[in-house]
């Protein structure tokens, strides 16, 4: 649970006063809080930890890190949820 996964911001909107967006991780998307990365917008890549984007990274870096995590089999457990509906 302490891993952080890079993903691409697909959308951004205000919800209950918080800036949230859908972020794509490979074939999975998850709702993600974008309040900690005001500099990031739709199309940008961010590093996401427990549903919160914590830094913006470039695309090449994001893709490399994602492949590394995927090759270690760490993604499934990290995005596991009983409540997420996507």
């Amino acid at each position: 649970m302490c891993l952080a996964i890079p993903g691409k911001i697909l959308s951004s909107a205000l919800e209950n006063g918080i800036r949230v967006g859908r972020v794509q991780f490979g074939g999975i998307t998850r709702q993600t809080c974008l309040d900690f990365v005001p500099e990031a917008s739709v199309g940008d890549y961010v590093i996401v930890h427990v549903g919160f984007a914590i830094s913006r990274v470039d695309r090449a870096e994001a893709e490399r890190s994602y492949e590394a995590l995927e090759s270690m089999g760490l993604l499934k457990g990290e995005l596991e949820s009983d409540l997420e509906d996507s």
Partner: protein
Amino acid sequence: MKYLDEYRDSNIARGIVAELGRRATRPWVLMEICGGQTHTLMRYGIDELLPAGIELVHGPGCPVCVTSLETIDKAIEIALRPDVTLISYGDMLRVPGSRIDLFHVKANGGDVRVVYSPTEALKFARMNPSRKVVFFAVGFETTAPANAMAVWQAKREGLKNFSMLASHVLVPPAIRALLSSSRNRVQGFIGPGHVCTIMGYREYEDLIREFHVPIVVGGFEPLDLLEAILMLVTQLEEGRAVVENQYVRSVTYEGNPLAQKVLAEVFEVCDRKWRGIGGIPESGLNLRQEYAEFDADRIFGTEGVTADEPAECISAEVLQGLKKPTDCSAFGTRCTPENPLGAPMVSSEGACAAYYQYRRHGMVAAKDIH
């Protein structure tokens, strides 16, 4: 060098390993703090690529592993209440408590659910006002801002059925405790890249002034870790001790100010008991008085719960870098990820689980030879 072929750029990796061989003139003991880094080191066999004498030991940076037994027992006690929905991160369900684990509670009809984000717990509370929703929040500085945000939002919305059993831990006090121990062997640290993405690395300068030990903030890919190791060995060979940042792609000196702000708004520093290690002064975060109405420990009266840790598990020594998981007589036999004796075998970031995943076959083969 079979592992090197799997690297994104194996030529760079070979170059770093060769450079390490040239620079290292004597043995050095290095520790990575973060469990995610432990996993990469094991997966890519980095420890086996290093020149003889450079030893990697694995630190206490797995939040699931260091959550105290009594905190697990508190979560179980709360989860057993019929009016409660207890929500946590997936790894927490199989961490052994004194008698049972949260998965056992769930299997026996308790309402225990897994989320990947605290905002999902908040959403569940909004949609289920008749349930007392308790978020079991563990984590280091990386996770604490997200958990803080959930409480901050709950207060702002006036949610009455949401609370948090918080057991956050901080990295710098843990490093201080390790370095203060008379048994310490660690001479340089790979700093945790995502903790420092949030916090920056200013506070690590105090540790260096105090202990004269180099710290290099590192990333999570194999090349990141090889580079961080080279930077540490270079400093040690030159007799220097400063903070350096290898993971510049994500980490700045100041960290993420917005995440730090919500952290400071909701939490305050407290003393914390670490599983396997014991009490470390000012090493945790608790809810501030202004957020006491969201403190599950207070709401459900579990403040007095205490527990003694079983002696059979050597996780204390593993988490302090004094022993390797494979030094344990129960490793891979009486202790496996399916039936863990201790928390480092539970979490995918735990050192024992990483060794189990990547090293147990080698161990069996080695035994067969003899």
